[in-house]
């Protein structure tokens, strides 16, 4: 709050801006000091050579050149994007029926369904991934059942690989997709669906011609969100995939904490951060242009 002197010029543009900056300064300082500065330092490390664990003076683009020029990394990027895309698609596939179900429910029932969808969000990812370890492990629920019913004799490798990561991550990120889809389905006019029904469209036709196109914004918003969250995820990949899988965030983790190759870890981090930021900007742009279209 500004101090008061009796003869100050009041409510001028300058004063409003000054007070505003004063109010926002602590928050701005905190985010700048604890996000911008550490990231800048990290970016700096990505431009250095490292000898025996010590960063050397002088800038170089060698770390980026090595990453982007290597066949191994090309494969890593490809696998990472494919896995994240797979998780996103599975979330959409599982999320759509749930979103339709919630949108069709009465208000009381709907509150309960919202509870079902949001409750897992409030449970720690470590705990949720642990649940999947109990499900997918060699002596986990699924393999126990499969062996007991003699469908297989040997336990299937369901965890410790990309498969385990994709299954676990789908469950972890599913609520985001459902909430995003529900939001756009809520705005859907049920009279449109009814009139489509009256016009003789089958349920599947109604879904393809009416429901699906109108939920595209929610689908895209949810997909971008899940995709970018998955790109940055580390807990589930590490716990269900293991430190040996070819996944970018896991490789960054190993580079930084197992191999102590800071320049490579920071350079891959910078590439990952750039990708996630672009996705975020894309999503904002898309939502904004959709809102503009909706208001005009």
């Amino acid at each position: 709050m500004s101090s008061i002197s009796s003869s100050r010029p009041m409510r001028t543009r300058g004063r409003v801006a000054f007070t505003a900056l004063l109010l926002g300064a602590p928050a701005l300082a905190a985010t700048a000091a604890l996000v911008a500065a550490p990231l800048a330092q990290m970016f700096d490390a990505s431009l250095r050579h490292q000898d025996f664990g010590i960063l050397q003076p002088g800038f170089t683009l060698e770390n980026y050149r090595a990453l982007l020029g290597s066949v191994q990394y090309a494969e890593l990027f490809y696998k990472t994007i494919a896995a994240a895309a797979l998780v996103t698609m599975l979330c959409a596939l599982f999320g759509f029926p749930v979103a339709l179900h919630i949108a069709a429910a009465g208000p009381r029932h709907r509150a309960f369904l919202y509870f079902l969808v949001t409750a897992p969000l409030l449970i720690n990812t470590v705990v949720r991934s642990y649940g999947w370890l109990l499900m997918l492990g060699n002596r986990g629920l699924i393999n126990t059942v499969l062996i007991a019913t003699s469908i297989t004799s040997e336990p299937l490798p369901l965890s410790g690989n990309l498969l385990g990561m994709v299954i676990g991550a789908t469950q972890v990120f599913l609520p985001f997709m459902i909430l995003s889809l529900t939001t756009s389905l809520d705005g859907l006019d049920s009279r449109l669906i009814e009139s489509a029904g009256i016009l003789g469209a089958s349920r599947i036709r109604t879904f393809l011609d009416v429901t699906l196109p109108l939920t595209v914004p929610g689908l895209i918003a949810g997909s971008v969100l899940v995709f970018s969250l998955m790109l940055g995820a580390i807990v589930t990949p590490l716990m269900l995939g293991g430190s040996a899988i070819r996944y970018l965030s896991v490789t960054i983790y190993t580079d930084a904490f197992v191999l102590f190759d800071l320049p490579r870890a920071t350079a891959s981090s910078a590439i990952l951060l750039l990708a996630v930021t672009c996705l975020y900007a894309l999503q904002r742009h898309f939502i904004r242009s959709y809102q503009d279209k909706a208001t005009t």
Partner: protein
Amino acid sequence: MPGPPSTSPVPLKVRARGLDKSFGSHRALRAIDLDIHNGEFLTLLGPSGCGKTTLMRVIAGLETNDGGTVMIDGRDVTHESPRRRGLGMVFQSYSLFPHMSVAENIGYGLKVAGKSKTEIEDRVREMLELISLPHVADRRPKALSGGQQQRVALARALATRPSLLMLDEPLGALDLKLRRQLQAELKRIHRATGMTFLFVTHDQEEALFLSDRIAVMRDGRIEQLDTPENIYRRPANDYVADFVGDVTLLSCGISGRNRRLAVVHDWPNAAPVTIAHPSPFDRFRLVVRPEQVALVPPDGRNGLPANVQEVINEGSTTLVLLKGPAGNQLKARLIGRPNFALHRGAAICAEVRGAEVCLPMEAG
């Protein structure tokens, strides 16, 4: 004591000089001068966007003026913060604090001024009596009707005994019946407190009913500042004439030795109209109020021959829309119903009685 009290100058509550205010490229106030006398009820009247609310907010200190000065009780407050100007304000949207009870709302100004608990309680009780709502002290504002909320807002503004009370379209959100009721109440409270009231409205009837003086505004300027009587009967220009009450302007030329006979142009077979004062112009427009028009059966001798176009029943009065032979329009307001046939298309004669204002012809 040197002179008799009648010759001492009336002390001014507000003296504003040369107020300018722009919002971007829009000039909200253009060099406004305004004097508000102690104890008067002054209304700023005009359509939305005319600058009336901006003028009030500049006087209150809620907007900074680009140029000019504001003095309150002889003190220059141009650069003073609103909280130090000693003013009260009532907003159209009530702006009561929703998380406080009615009593806490009314006592707020005294509380922040550090007054004692008993003093606040006494004053709150007194205010609730004044607004005739003694039983709502412990309720939340949301539990009250719109009219009650606005009375509480009034009590809150009056509780600190401001030297000037500003009311920004305070009755705008209320229905007609409640408006009438609260208008009477406002008038009573103004008389009871002896405070200076500055009122903003776009409703000319409200302004005419409440005010000691009215400032009619347009495009950031004051077009006329006068008593309701003069604003209505002697508008300074077309704009004021048209904005305050129904009016028809008849183009006329002067005739007669004492310049008190107006010959209506473009109105075939019209008899000259007698006007109250000699006209200063040779060609002019005569301001005719509907109640200055009387209808008589057509005899071809007196008045303006016309046909009835529409008869509108207004309850205690009847508004008749007339059309002259050349297509000119005229309105007549009758008390009760006339004793002869009035129906659409009927031929009739309109007599203009008591018209007194002549406006110059428009330039070009």
